[in-house]
């Protein structure tokens, strides 16, 4: 007699057609359903089902194949092996997604390597100060309206900062305010705000190179971070950075002024 059966849930449905032999690549939901069945209340019932299926599968494998049929199996080249062409592999969305991700990662990594290849000692400090510049408000600074070049004396006399000089390219700009602060990584930093394009100047101790030597450079080197650009030069063991929100092309006119 037929028994009344309740509506089976998804895992019961999956268990109903659980694979006879577990091959690699089995669906996750099926794997979970099998594991639950093996360790749950229905372990015995599921065990009987698996034994039943295995016995029938064995009987199927025992189906004899007579000599005439076996001859067909010997003709191995009867049906050519259809290989997946490279075009089909390349068109696979998963492959495309992985390729794009790798390209992006590669591009970012190359950019970072390129960026650091052209770095100078102190570039990391300069980038850190760009983040300070980007997040600062002018109210943090002591208001002071004078020529930027005149602040060297103030830094020396008030804060004992020697050689904290603003280069001649920027010495004539009028300041809005200034401050001197200690940073965990950069140490003693002098920060100046000027009216011109809301530019900021930073003066900070130079970073020794790998050999422990501090080598000055009189040319201008650039660092960029999150839309901010800094032009850095190093004299007498002190770095000067002019920073603004913009690109290298916005700073170039000021740097070329002296050459002209």
């Amino acid at each position, binding site marked *: 007699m037929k028994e009344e059966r309740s509506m089976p849930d998804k895992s019961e*449905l999956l268990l*109903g*057609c659980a694979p006879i032999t577990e091959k690699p690549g089995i669906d996750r939901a099926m794997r979970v359903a099998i594991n639950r069945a093996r360790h749950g209340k229905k372990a015995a019932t599921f065990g009987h089902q698996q034994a*039943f*299926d295995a016995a029938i599968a064995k009987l199927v494998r025992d189906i004899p*194949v007579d000599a005439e049929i076996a001859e*067909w199996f010997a003709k191995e080249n009867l049906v050519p092996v*259809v290989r997946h062409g490279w075009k089909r592999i390349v068109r696979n969305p998963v492959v495309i997604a992985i390729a794009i991700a790798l390209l992006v990662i590669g591009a970012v990594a190359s950019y970072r390597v390129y960026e650091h290849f052209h770095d100078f000692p102190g570039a990391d400090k300069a980038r850190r100060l760009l983040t300070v510049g980007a997040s600062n408000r002018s109210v943090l600074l002591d208001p002071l309206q004078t020529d930027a070049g005149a602040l060297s004396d103030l830094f020396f006399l008030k804060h004992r900062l020697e050689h904290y000089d603003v280069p001649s390219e920027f010495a004539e700009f009028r300041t809005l305010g200034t401050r001197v602060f200690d940073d965990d990584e950069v140490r003693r930093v002098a920060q100046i705000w000027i009216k011109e394009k809301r530019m900021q100047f930073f003066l900070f101790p130079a970073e020794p190179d790998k050999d422990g030597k501090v080598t000055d450079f009189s040319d201008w080197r650039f660092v960029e971070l999150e839309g901010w650009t800094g032009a850095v030069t190093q004299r007498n063991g002190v770095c000067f950075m002019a920073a603004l929100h913009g690109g290298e092309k916005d700073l170039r006119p000021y740097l070329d002024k002296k050459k002209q």
Partner: protein
Amino acid sequence: MAVTTKNLPQLYRFCFLMTGDASKAQSAFQDTVREAASRSAGDEPPPDRLWFFRDARGRCLAVGEQGLQAEPGMLEEAEISPMAPEQIASLAPAQLALWISAAPEPQRSALALFYLDEFSLAELLSLLEMKAGEFSELICSGRRQFQSWLDSTIAYYEGGAFDAGQI
């Protein structure tokens, strides 16, 4: 997976389970392999191994249509017995093939393909063009019906199976 001589015996077994008759199975098998060979010669080879089983299924069904057709839901069902493996072990493959070939479609194809133990669930569903729930129902009811048939055909006693020889 490519179609090699390793898969062809399985194709024949499938045909045998579907038809329950060695000569009909051989005919369906050979026609399928010939069709594959002629497609390959015409630069249009079968796309995958599933093609072979689809083609063979169609041929087996066409052969089966000439005889009596089974109706669904006509057989008694019984719960799977712990003694089933011993009962099944006492069967001949031809008895199993006859029973499966007598099942109504699409249960016949579902059972034949499932017990080949050759395909993943996704491949089986693709071959049979049905949902997992429907496939599972067919296999489960097939199991219970086969158990009922086993119980009526091969009584199992503690000492071993006794074939009543009903087939």
